[in-house]
């Protein structure tokens, strides 16, 4: 169950919510609190990830695996699950990124098996 993986991920300190989004911006699975509009987050995450892919491609840096957007109000981490899906995490502004990155990577691998 992808929802179970997301729920486990949300237990990591600083993670506010998580969702799996298809490459066309549709929600595949989500575990987000009611104050988050998952459809809006999914659409924005898909757009910025696509933009990020173009930038790293221009710089010949390889395939984009993780994108982290940090703002004064919080952080959004987008991780590639496959060519068709990404894992999106919303975290607190002062979340411990090192741990979250590792857990998110493990979760993405687990979700990839289930998709």
């Amino acid at each position, binding site marked *: 169950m992808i929802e179970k993986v997301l729920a486990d991920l949300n237990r990591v300190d600083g993670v506010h919510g998580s969702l799996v989004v298809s490459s066309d911006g549709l929600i595949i699975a989500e575990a987000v609190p009611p104050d988050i509009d998952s459809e809006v987050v999914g659409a924005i995450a898909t757009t910025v990830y696509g933009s990020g892919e173009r930038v790293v491609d221009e710089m010949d840096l390889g*395939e984009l695996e993780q994108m982290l957007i940090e703002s004064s109000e919080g952080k959004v981490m987008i991780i590639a699950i496959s060519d068709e899906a990404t894992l999106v995490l919303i975290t607190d502004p002062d979340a411990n990124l090192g741990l979250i990155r590792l857990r998110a990577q493990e979760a993405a691998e687990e979700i990839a098996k289930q998709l």
Partner: protein
Amino acid sequence: MARIVGKFKRLFRRGEEGTEERLPEEEAREVREEALQRALQIASKQLEPDELVETAKRDMSKALSELREYFGFERMVVIDRDGKPIGMSGGGSFETELIEALRSVFEAAETADTIIVSSESEGPNYLAVKINDSIAICETKTTPSDADIFMLRNDLSMVIESASLPASTEETDTPYVVTDRQGLVVASSGVSNPDRIAAEVSRLADFLDEHLVGELEWVKLTTDSGETLAVKPYKDVLVAFVVESDLEEVDEECEKVAKSLASSLEGLIDLTAETSASKSKAKPSEEG
């Protein structure tokens, strides 16, 4: 100052009393000289040339900001002979077409050293002054007087001469692109297609500014090659650079490289203009 006021009072009183008993000429001259000296002291406090030179040596953009505030300009940019910005102040860079048009006029009219572009009604006016190989372009709401232009020319000459080497010539191992918010390359190193990168990065930052709640602090793009392209916004520019690091240490590494780059790009990036985002942490938003 009290002494000067006292002497003026004496001058006025005597004037009222009549001209029979005039102050001795020497004393009157002394009063005038003191008053003049005092006026000069007050004027020089507003823009101290020595301080301006010292500021320009450390940070050209900061020196330009002082000039911009002093002359009441909205925006200011100084470009080198190739048209590359070597310092800027105010709300971002100018439109490429405007810069190119002004450069063309200076090129065509070789002896010209000042161009004033006036707008009707309340549109902005532009003042461009050529100093050696550099051109300073200023946007202003008022029409600059001959005296303003003369003073600006003197001050700008000092700033440009005092400023350290343009940051775009700085050598560093870290590949980077500095772009303004419109996607124009301000400086770059170790990147083969800086224009394309600048365009993509500025577009991405624009989109995030529009949709993100709070101020954008960082964008980090990590690839399967273990490299991370980090983008750090400052007030007028975006600095994009590449770091190689493990995932556990990438955030720390980005901070370290950003500091080092900012230091080597001093003069191009006003460090005080960094977004204040890091100072105001709050609860997470919908979009993060």
